[in-house]
């Protein structure tokens, strides 16, 4: 029995964001997440996917499903080789945007999931990982 599965999803165009959402939703359903859990996780993934496309200039998402004993989890890691974020604290703050958005994407995503990790190096790129266990 495979303990985990990993899929690479490209994020190059707006339609890829839809594909990411659908893949994440499917994974959440497979792991037995409730409707609320699914919706929260999918929405968080949608936020990060759009940032990857819009600010990171595109990238990819690695979608993983894990089964560890009775624990089941979904994790997705977004990577881009974009300009990076110089001030993470500022970027995470609600209302901060450089792109005319609401500036709630990063903060909102963090509140929607159990595990949220962001690393970013200016000039190198940004990686955001979100995960939820059940």
């Amino acid at each position, binding site marked *: 029995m495979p303990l985990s599965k990993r899929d690479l999803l490209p994020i190059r165009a*707006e*339609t890829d*964001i*839809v594909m990411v*959402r659908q893949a994440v*939703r499917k994974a959440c359903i497979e792991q037995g997440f409730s*409707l*609320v859990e*699914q*919706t*929260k996780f*999918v*929405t968080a993934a*949608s*936020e990060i996917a*759009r940032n990857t496309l819009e600010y990171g200039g595109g990238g990819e998402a690695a979608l993983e499903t894990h089964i560890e004993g009775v624990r089941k989890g979904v994790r997705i890691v977004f990577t881009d080789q974009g300009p990076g974020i110089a001030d993470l604290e500022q970027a995470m703050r*609600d209302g901060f945007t450089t792109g005319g*958005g*609401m500036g*709630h*994407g990063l*903060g*909102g995503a963090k*509140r*929607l999931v159990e595990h949220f990790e962001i690393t970013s190096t200016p000039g190198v790129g940004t990686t955001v990982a979100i995960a939820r266990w059940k």
Partner: protein
Amino acid sequence: MPDSRLPDLIARHEADLLAQWAKALSAAGATREDLMKPEELRAQCADLLGSVRQALQRGGNDITGQGWEKVRELLTEISRTRAQQGFTPTATASFVFSLKEPLFQRLRSEHAANPALLVEETWSTTTLVDKLGLFTIESYIKAREDIIRRQQEAMLELSTPVVKLWDGILALPLIGTLDSARTQIVMESLLQRVVTESTDVVILDITGVPTVDTLVAQHLLKTVTAARLMGTDCIISGIRPQIAQTIVHLGVDLTSVITKSSLADAFKVALSRRDLMVVKRKAAAAGAQA
């Protein structure tokens, strides 16, 4: 390398090559008679072989060059129709690659006495057919992408109905993905209708929208604001429990907007805004008598 003898060889054995090619095609499973008539296929083969010969005669085997325009056009058209007819990429590419075998056979019998020339001619022929095959695959993929794009556009247009529920009350049942180019179109057509029909209340129903993220929320809020500037109130309906929770976590403030969980509830609010109400017929009759 001296001028290729290939065009000459094709000219002398055209009919035979076509017959062999047809055989190779059916051996490769590239004929698909369910999708395409045999005579149509034969005509395509004859057209292509003829124009390849002409292009070679004009000189050069750079298929991106001027002399190869006709061949490129033919291959593009062939790939496009095959993509539409539902041929697989393999079946489409096999159409071109199946030409190798008959050509090689011809070269073998032609240059049997001159192995060096045979190798040289075989090499240049295989390179040429490979290039034509790759060109075909690329055109096929482009054609497929076009088809997909057209389907997407068709869907954009299909799913943007603005429904009049009552005098002065419009509803916009939103279904599916809200964050693409579609949102812009939907919202614009809604605001247009708000102008042309004097509208008091608009109901934006998001029952069919699976994900409401910050971008969707922003689009909704912008529409509400724009409608309000034109003197029209908006109600957002179809906020299911999971969506409500998500919106709270996102920290999006919808308190300035009237929201309802169902379209029916929203319609009730809209009616009362217009000083209207729905009553049971009996009750209405009793009221009239009193």
